[in-house]
């Protein structure tokens, strides 16, 4: 399968500051690629270089085989973009906005059909200034689809949206993928990346620190599965003593590494024999969010935060 995006040795410097410090990655055609990183990591700069909105300092970049800066006009005919915090003319209605984009691109579109696709048909005649944040992003998504793009760049399309609006946009992204389009997604929400993305790359301080499928990244950088038991702090020293395992007490739970399923049986029978009160248990594995915390070291309520390198 050919690559829709190819990046090799990409840098972007502002004076002595390297916003992007030599990165390589590729996005296969027809896949959803999630580009993750805390604020200030170089994420948006990279996306804007790929979109042809910003000039790179050095490196090779092709999108659909075209140089985004030099062949921007040819590329834009095949690309759909939602920038961060999509803005439009305040007094214009969504249906007029779509007709405007269609006229600019010289394409014929069913404006109402496109609005139905992003669940915005009931606001077709509302002024842009009266739309909520989620509705504005949905219009941005509809406009990004006006030219029937081969690849869509969605830069934090769900930031600040309520769960319902976020799920509506997720469904559109799934539909785009099933239509064979490539989706380049940046997001602060790691759950979103884990659910939607075929491929993930994590950028921090201008460098890619992990890439692969979500499962590959978790397998590579995550901790092994663990048995989690709801028990008092006295249980951890008991298990360490009785079984010789590295049991830890964290936030009201005792966690014990689980190298294989037989180990679970051994731990459960030790729990029964401990005489220490305990409630339920579960096996847990790391999520992409856990891996991110581990790699980047900065998370708050499921959202990446900028900070010092780990």
């Amino acid at each position, binding site marked *: 399968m050919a690559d829709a995006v190819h990046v090799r040795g990409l840098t972007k410097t502002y004076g002595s500051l390297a916003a992007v410090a030599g990165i390589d990655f590729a996005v296969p055609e027809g896949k959803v690629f999630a580009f993750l990183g805390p604020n200030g990591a170089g994420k948006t700069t990279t996306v*804007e270089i790929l*979109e*042809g*909105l*910003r*000039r790179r300092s050095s490196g090779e970049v092709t999108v659909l085989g075209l140089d985004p800066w030099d062949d*921007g*006009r040819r590329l*834009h*005919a095949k*690309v759909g*973009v939602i*920038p961060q*915090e*999509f*803005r*439009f*003319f*305040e*007094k*214009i209605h969504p249906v*007029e*906005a779509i*007709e*405007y*984009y269609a*006229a*600019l*691109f*010289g394409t014929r579109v069913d404006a109402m059909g496109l609005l139905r696709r992003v669940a915005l048909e009931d606001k077709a005649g509302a*002024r842009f200034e009266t739309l909520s944040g989620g509705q504005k992003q949905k219009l941005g998504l509809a406009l990004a689809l006006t030219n029937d793009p081969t690849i869509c760049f969605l830069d934090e399309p769900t930031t600040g949206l309520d769960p319902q609006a976020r799920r509506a946009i997720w469904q559109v992204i799934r539909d785009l993928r099933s239509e064979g389009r490539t989706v380049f997604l940046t997001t602060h929400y790691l759950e979103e990346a884990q659910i939607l993305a075929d491929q993930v790359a994590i950028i921090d301080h201008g460098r890619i620190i992990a890439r692969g499928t979500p499962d590959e990244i978790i397998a590579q950088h995550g901790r092994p599965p663990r048995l989690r038991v709801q028990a008092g702090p006295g249980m951890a020293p008991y298990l360490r003593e009785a079984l010789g395992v590295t049991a830890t007490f964290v936030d009201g739970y005792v966690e014990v590494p689980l190298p294989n399923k037989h180990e679970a049986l051994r731990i459960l029978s030790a729990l029964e024999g401990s005489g220490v009160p305990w409630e339920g248990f579960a096996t847990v594995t790391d999520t992409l969010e856990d891996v991110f915390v581990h790699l980047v070291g900065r998370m708050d309520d499921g959202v990446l935060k900028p900070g010092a390198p780990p």
Partner: protein
Amino acid sequence: MRPRRIVADLKVFGRNYLRNAVGLFFSLIFPVILIGLFGLIFSAGGATTVTLYTQNFDAGSNVSAQFLSALNATGAVQVQLVGPTLNMSSWLGANGHPVGLVIPSGLGSAYLAHRPFAVTLYTNPTDAASSGIAYAAVNYVLTQFNLNASHGSTILFATTANVGSPLYKEIDYLVPGLIGFSILTSPMFAMVDISSTYRKEGLFRQLSLTPLTKGEWLTSKIIWYVLLTILSAALMIGMGVYYFGAHVTVSLEMLPFLVLGPFFFVSLGMFAGSIARTPESAAIIGNIITFPMMFLSGTFFPVSLFPPGLQTFARILPLYYVIDGLNQVMLFHNLAAAAVDLAVIGAASVVVFVLAIVAFQWRER
């Protein structure tokens, strides 16, 4: 340049504009209010008759009655009789009246007997204009009476005419002047604001992702402001002609100025907004460019009334050539002079359009 894209952008911009009450007010209603306001001021100021408070102690004679009606007939003064018991000098001073006339008893008999006789004119040096008008009117009537008494006749005389021949009133100059004002302010303020806020809000970046070019975008703005200017000029001419009796000629020769004016100022506004880093500094740059032109290009008063130094300064202001051109076409019918104005504003427009295209960037470097 693709007309399809220009028309699409024009439609969206126009709709957005028409749904914005503030923009509409400043581009269409405000110029009409201005012409109404200045029309009222000038039509009130047009009555320059000085009231001449007069004590007539010779009320019984026909001669004094004829003398007073001759004074009224000059049109420069309006005689207002006051009671004979007043002390004229102190009464005028106490009531703030600048001029007064006292006709002593015996004027009629002295005139018929060809005996020298004086009337007294009170004037106030602090109101030189009224005093001068009253002095001239009284002397003029006295001279006529003297000539009449000696059976002489006027040999040398002057007729009066305004520059450019037919008689122009202030409102006649005001109509092209305020059309020029509207050509300046509406696109300049809008484009300075648009260029900086679109950039700040990322709208230019979004548009750069479509096939629309900078030239097409700017052309659609120029077309919009040309349409708006023609509409606003029609409203102002209508108001000036029907409410204030302005004598202006409406002709196709106005059109080049109604096109090139907005062309120039849309481009200049775009250029000014593009070289500014923030919307705040854009507004300052816009004001520095706009305000001198607003007052010194012949908008409210003809440039010919300015002191010579200011007249020279006015000639470096682009709006001067728009207003002068409109004056030449609408008032003086001097197409040769209008052609010179047109050449200047046309060349300037092309230069500023190119500068604006170069200065404003869709994308980041």
